[in-house]
C-alpha cells in the first residue's frame, strides 16, 4: 500500500486522517506562536518537555500506522517510511540513525528551526533549541523502526535557531510512556449542517481541497501553497500542548488560567491573519475563486471555506451581521481531544475556534480590502493588539456533550 492510500476523510465533517491519525494544515506563524504560548504559560523548560513529549506520542501513533500501513518490515524500511513521511508533511528532512534503544539524528530545513530563523533570526538571539516536534519525531521513529515499546527521548544538541550550524539530536531511553491520543475511530459520523452562504462555502471548499490535493513537498521537505509555508500536522500535538499547558497552569494557580486561555485564543487570530489572509490575497485565490472585494458575508464565508479545506471541521455561519457572528459546527479538531483524552469535561474550551471566529470579524470589518494593506506585523498589531471591541463566548461545546460547538462573537 502507498502512503497516499492511508489518507482518509470524514468528508461531511471536513476532518482528515492519515493512518487514522487526525491531521490539519497549519502555517509556521501559528506553529511558532503556539509553541511560544506554551513556553510563556508554563516556563521554557517545562514547555520544552511538554511539547517534546506530546510530539513523541503523536508521532508514535502516526508513524506506527504508516510504517505498518505501507508494509515496511525491516528497521531500515520502517525508518525510511518515517523519514519520507516527515518530509512529505512539510516538516523538513530528518536523517535518523536508529539502533535498538538509542540513536542520533540530524535535520535539514526543519520547519520550526528554519522558520524561526527566517521570522525572528535577524532581531532576536535565541539560546534554547526550538525543534521539539523534530525531537519527538526522532525518538518515535527510532522506536517504530525497531518496534520497541520502551520510551525513548531525544535531546536537541544543536539548533540553527540558536546559530548552531545544524540541528542535531541524541536519542536515549527515557521520557514518559505515551498517553492516550485521538484516533479516527473515536469520531462518530455526523449529519452535515448548513448555514448562511452554504452553497458558496461548499463550492470554494471543494475547489481548495482539490487544489491542496495536488500540492506536494519539495525534495527538502518544504510545502508551499498560496504563498504560505505549511505543515500537515497532528491535532494530537496541538491539543496535547494546549490543554496540557492549561492543566499545568491550573495546578499552579487557577487565577492564571484565563491568561493562558486568552493566548490560546490568540493563536486563532495569528492563524487567520497570516494563513487565511495570505490565502485570500494569493493569486491562487484570484484564479480559483476571484479577487476578494471585502464584503462581510464574502469574507466570513471565505474564511469558513478555508477552515474546512484545511481540515478544521465543517464550520458554518449560523448568524452574521456587522455586530454579531455565530459560527456553529458539528465537528472541530479541539473537542475530540477533550472528549476522548481528558478525564474531566472541558466545556467552552475550543480556544482556536473562538479566536478564529473573532479574527473573521476583524478581517471582514477592520481590514481595508480595497487598499490591500500588506499583512505585516504592524497591521496585525493594529487589528488585534488594541482594546477589542469584540467579545467571544462558547455556549455550546461538543466536548460537553452538545450536538454542536457554537461560538458567538458580539460587538461590545
Amino acid at each position, binding site marked *: 500500500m502507498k502512503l497516499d492510500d492511508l489518507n482518509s476523510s470524514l468528508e461531511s465533517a471536513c476532518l482528515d486522517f492519515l493512518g487514522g491519525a487526525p491531521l490539519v494544515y497549519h502555517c509556521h506563524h501559528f506553529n511558532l506562536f503556539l509553541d511560544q504560548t506554551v513556553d510563556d504559560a508554563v516556563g521554557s523548560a517545562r514547555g520544552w518537555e511538554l511539547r517534546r513529549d506530546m510530539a513523541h506520542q503523536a508521532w508514535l501513533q502516526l508513524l506506527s500506522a504508516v510504517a505498518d500501513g505501507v508494509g515496511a518490515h525491516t528497521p531500515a524500511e520502517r525508518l525510511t517510511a518515517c523519514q519520507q513521511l516527515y518530509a512529505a508533511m512539510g516538516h523538513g528532512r530528518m536523517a535518523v540513525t536508529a539502533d535498538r534503544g538509542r540513536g542520533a539524528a540530524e535535520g535539514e530545513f526543519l520547519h520550526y528551526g528554519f522558520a524561526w530563523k*527566517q521570522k525572528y533570526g535577524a532581531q532576536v538571539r535565541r539560546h534554547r533549541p526550538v525543534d521539539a516536534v523534530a525531537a519527538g519525531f526522532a525518538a518515535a521513529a527510532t522506536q517504530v523502526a525497531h518496534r520497541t515499546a520502551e520510551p525513548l527521548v531525544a535531546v536537541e544538541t544543536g539548533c540553527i535557531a540558536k546559530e548552531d550550524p545544524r540541528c542535531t539530536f541524541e536519542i536515549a531511553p527515557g521520557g514518559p510512556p505515551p498517553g492516550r491520543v485521538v484516533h479516527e475511530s473515536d469520531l462518530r459520523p455526523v449529519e452535515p449542517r448548513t448555514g448562511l452562504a452554504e452553497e458558496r462555502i461548499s463550492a470554494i471548499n471543494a475547489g481548495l481541497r482539490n487544489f491542496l490535493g495536488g500540492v506536494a513537498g519539495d525534495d527538502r521537505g518544504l510545502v508551499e501553497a498560496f*504563498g504560505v509555508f505549511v505543515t500537515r500536522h497532528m491535532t494530537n500535538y496541538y491539543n496535547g500542548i494546549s490543554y496540557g499547558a492549561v492543566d499545568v497552569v491550573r495546578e499552579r494557580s487557577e487565577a492564571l488560567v484565563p491568561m493562558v486561555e486568552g493566548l490560546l485564543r490568540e493563536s486563532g487570530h495569528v492563524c487567520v491573519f497570516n494563513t487565511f489572509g495570505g490565502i485570500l490575497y494569493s493569486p491562487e485565490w484570484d484564479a480559483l475563486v476571484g479577487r476578494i472585494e471585502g464584503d462581510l458575508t464574502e469574507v466570513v464565508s471565505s474564511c469558513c471555506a478555508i477552515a474546512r479545506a484545511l481540515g478544521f471541521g465543517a464550520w458554518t455561519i449560523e448568524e452574521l451581521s456587522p455586530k454579531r457572528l455565530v459560527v456553529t459546527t458539528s465537528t472541530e479538531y479541539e473537542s475530540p481531544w477533550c472528549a476522548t483524552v481528558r478525564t474531566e469535561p472541558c466545556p467552552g474550551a475550543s480556544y482556536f475556534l473562538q479566536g478564529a471566529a473573532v479574527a473573521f470579524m476583524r478581517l471582514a470589518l477592520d481590514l481595508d480590502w480595497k487598499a490591500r494593506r500588506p499583512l505585516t506585523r504592524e497591521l496585525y498589531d493594529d487589528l488585534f493588539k488594541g482594546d477589542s471591541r469584540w467579545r467571544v463566548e462558547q455556549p455550546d461545546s461538543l466536548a460537553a456533550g452538545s450536538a454542536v460547538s457554537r461560538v458567538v462573537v458580539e460587538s461590545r
Partner: protein
Amino acid sequence: MMGDAVTQEAGCVRAFLWNVDHGLPGALVLARLEAAGWQGKLFAGALWIFAREPAYDKVVFVPATGRLQVRVDMARPYEERRGVAEDVHRALCEPADPAPPVA
C-alpha cells in the same frame, strides 16, 4: 522602469513574494517564461505555476487577470531575492529573443 514593475508583496517569509507588472497578453507571458527555461503546470484550468530546476523559485500566473507573482526560494539570502523577480521581469519584458512563437 523595472523599479516600479517589481514590487514586494507581504508574505509568509520576508522578501518572499514579489509582484511583477508586465502588461503582456497571457499567451506571450507563457511563451516567454518557457523560453527562459521555466516549466509550467496548469491548475484548475485557471492558474499556472512555473518552476525552474535546480532552483526552488516559483512563478505563479493568473491569465484571466494578468497577475504574476514570483515566490523566491526562502533559502536564498535576502540580498538575492529581489534579483530573482527582476530576472523574471527581464525575461518577460526584455527577452533575448523578443518574438518567441505565440500559441
